[in-house]
């Protein structure tokens, strides 16, 4: 049973427009959420994160919104650039007996056309 879901496998956006990537989760015990970006043949790189005590975190062109009641978060990229084309993974941090672990979604492939 997938605890972190990215229901859109792909998204296409024109350069300069807004990209909105969505993520849903099922475990209400998740306390920290992250977005990673991955280019082909490279490892994921950290993009932005948000704690469960906040509902918004902004870093330049990237903003993450968290709606705890809906168990939903989204990543907004404004304005989108061709270099943003990559796979974006949503991840959630879960505390268990052994500490914490990151649970990843399946990813959304973003294509930004010029």
């Amino acid at each position, binding site marked *: 049973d997938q605890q972190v879901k990215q229901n859109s496998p792909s998204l296409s956006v024109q350069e300069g427009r807004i990209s909105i990537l969505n993520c849903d989760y099922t475990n209400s015990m998740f306390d920290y959420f992250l977005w990673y970006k991955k280019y082909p043949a490279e490892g994921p*790189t950290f993009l932005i994160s948000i704690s469960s005590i906040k509902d918004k975190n902004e870093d330049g062109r990237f903003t993450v919104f968290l709606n705890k009641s809906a168990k939903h978060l989204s990543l907004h990229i404004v304005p989108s650039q061709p270099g943003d084309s990559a796979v974006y993974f949503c991840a959630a941090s879960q505390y268990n007996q052994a500490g914490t672990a990151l649970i990843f979604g399946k990813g959304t492939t973003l294509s930004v056309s010029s």
Partner: protein
Amino acid sequence: EAGVVQSPRYKIIEKKQPVAFWCNPISGHNTLYWYRQNLGQGPELLIRYENEEAVDDSQLPKDRFSAERLKGVDSTLKIQPAELGDSAVYLCASSLMTGAASGNTIYFGEGSWLTVV
């Protein structure tokens, strides 16, 4: 500062053969992770180390997979014998301390791409 270094980048082996992956985390990072990423999926945790101690290996298939982190720095992940379903990208990651939290970013290496034929 060097990032997380993994080798080999690519490996093709026949089923039933052994294979090993090596990881050198970022200097000073106490926590080391091994993840596996199957095609079209997100990374899944295999094992997590705090220094030289494996603190979470609940998802590691122990019948054929083994890992070690001697001296709490470098780590190796071994598969013996490999099966066709083991074809995946094996990602090593490290962080300064345990857990995802503000200021404790988890950094990934480029991955070791395994194909079992």
